[in-house]
């Protein structure tokens, strides 16, 4: 009995640990192949990988694209979310449907025409060209709308009595209460755009605009033929280490925000 109970208590943990090992194996291998050579810790692979492609530029591009997109999506999401949560006006149904359309039609379904539009605007090979089709996020709108709806009306009324206009109310009352939702949305937005590949690949032609995922794919193809796996592993480490460290540091807050905001 005692054994059975012990198994029941420890079992899930052990099972999960085993699963975690399977899931983490590629990341662990990257660390091993990058930093370990002939029984020693080494930074040689990492510095070689760093020198083999303009990773600094790629990283900067990625930060600009991912950060810029989150900023734009949050700004637009908050504005539209607020209007949809708190206003009645003619055509609201239609407007709501328009923003839902952004969720309903994935960019990849209309890839070719989207490409033509960016081409027509002469935005090929630019970061803006990568970003524009994603600038407004329907999920962002829904997330903020939901968060704003949860704000008690008394707070808004109190703020108005204090003399705030609508924008002031939004800034002082609504936005602070939407921070967990914004954080949760950031997880969705950042993971998506950080890992996005085919669209940035198609839009970009040179290192000037390529984000890190595309740069890594290019490096992999260039060295794949020579199968320089250690170099490739180190390049992968360059790409994934920062985000892994960030996630390791903040995962509690991120996961908590996520589960709290998407507790449908």
């Amino acid at each position, binding site marked *: 009995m005692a054994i059975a109970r012990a198994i029941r208590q420890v079992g899930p943990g052990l099972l999960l640990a085993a699963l975690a090992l399977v899931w983490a194996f590629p990341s662990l291998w990257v660390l091993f192949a990058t930093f370990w050579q002939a029984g020693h810790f080494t930074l040689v692979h990492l510095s070689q990988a760093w020198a*083999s492609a303009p990773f600094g530029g790629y990283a900067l591009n990625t930060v600009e694209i991912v950060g810029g997109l989150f900023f*734009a999506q949050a*700004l637009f999401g908050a*504005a539209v979310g607020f209007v949809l949560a708190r206003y009645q006006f003619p055509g609201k149904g239609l407007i709501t449907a328009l923003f839902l359309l952004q969720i309903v039609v994935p960019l990849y379904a209309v890839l070719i025409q989207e490409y033509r539009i960016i*081409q027509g605007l*002469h*935005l*090929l*090979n*630019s*970061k*803006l*060209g990568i970003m*524009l089709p994603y600038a407004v996020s329907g999920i962002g709108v829904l997330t903020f709308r939901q968060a704003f709806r949860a704000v008690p009306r008394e707070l808004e009324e109190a703020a108005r009595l204090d003399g705030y*206009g*609508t*924008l002031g109310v939004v800034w002082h009352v609504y936005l602070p209460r939407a921070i967990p939702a914004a954080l949760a949305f950031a997880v969705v937005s950042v993971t998506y755009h950080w890992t996005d590949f085919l669209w940035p690949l*198609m839009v970009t*032609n*040179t*290192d*000037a*605009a390529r984000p890190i995922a595309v740069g890594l794919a*290019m490096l992999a*193809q*260039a*060295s*794949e*033929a*020579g*199968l*320089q796996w250690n170099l490739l592993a180190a390049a992968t480490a360059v790409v994934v280490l920062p985000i892994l460290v960030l996630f390791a540091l903040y995962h509690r807050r991120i996961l908590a925000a996520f589960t709290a905001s998407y507790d449908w």
Partner: protein
Amino acid sequence: MKGVKSMLRVWAAAAATGVGLLALAGCGNAGVASGSQPSSASHTITLTYDYPVGVSGPLAQIMNGMVARFNQTHPGIHVNPVFSGNYVQTLAKVETAIQSGTPPAVAVLNHTAVFDLLHLNAVQPLDSLVQSGDFYPALLQPKVGGHYWSVPFQRSTVVLYYNKALFAKAGLNPDQGPSTWQQLVQDASLIQEKTGVTGIEIPSDGTVYWEFQPFAIEAGQNLAANDGVTVHFNSQAAETALQFWVDLSHKYHVEPPGILPWNTVPDDFERGKTAMIVHSSGSLASIVQNASFPVGVSFMPQGVGQARTNMGGGDFYIFRGISPAQTQAAETFVRWMTAPAQAAYWSMHTGYVPVTSQALQDPQMQRFVQQHPQFLVAPEQLQYAEPELSTYQLNQIYEIFDSAVQSVLDGQTDVKTALNRAQQQAEAALAPYRTTGQ
């Protein structure tokens, strides 16, 4: 109403940020002079240069090094090298750029892309560049529409690599690879028997048609005529060759069954997992460097007639839609890259054929081939080489033929059915060009 104004002001600021970015992007995107490097002098001409990597080795690094040297030695010109994937991906990228009106100035693309590029009216004739060099004639075939459209650069042949140590161990003559198909099978079985190492690996993904072509040619007929619209996928020769491929795995058991990746086959060879491989001569430098045993290189073993092979690899193209000054700069760049010193350098570091006899006569190259006589095999092969499969709708035609071969290797279809179907599909795809294209 203050709110409305503030709101609009927020959007105006957002839009201004966007337009600001747009203006920044615009600099990098104006005309063909893409890339963000600011012109150091107002007279610097910027060229975008797209190139693929299709063989083993750190070719992108070697290429970037050469371009950097060109930029240093040519003050008025700045070339931006852009690595764009393998040959198919690079062609896709360049054709898309052409369609959007922003072609690169120069690109290395398959010699065989010429029909599609002409169909798009995308490239400039390069007759004077070609005629002023002394390129090997085999590299210039076929001449389309009476012009030369590309300058030979990273050209290769299909060769047979063999592990001399394993040959010696099995009691075979290590100075000579197998010279006939029959002998290939015998040697491979003997090695497997004596050493336990796999006999041979022939890659069968990526550009299957290319590794297959020498076998078809040796069996009597190339896969295509040189007019861009005629293919011979279901010829007797193709059938014989494909049957031989199947037999290597399933009858003689000297090759692993299934589809072998282009990229890992050289790796298997370097690690002594297989005694022989068929691969591009362009992989030679990397294979010699990575292998811990003496590497033998030989002609493809002969089929019915004498030993043959086929050409492969990429040429320089210069595109339409760039300014006359850029065209001139692009010609300077191409002339420099294919000049004896650079051609020899590229050849020594990759294994690609030295494209001119002057490059082969280059003193450094001569010293090099004395140490590494394997590098002479591909140039000697040139006189027996036939052109690579080249048509309109190139990528689709390649895909059709490669699928046919793979479906046979995979055991899904028999040789005859697969090749007949490929012929039908290719004819259907080429039909529009047959009537109007020429």
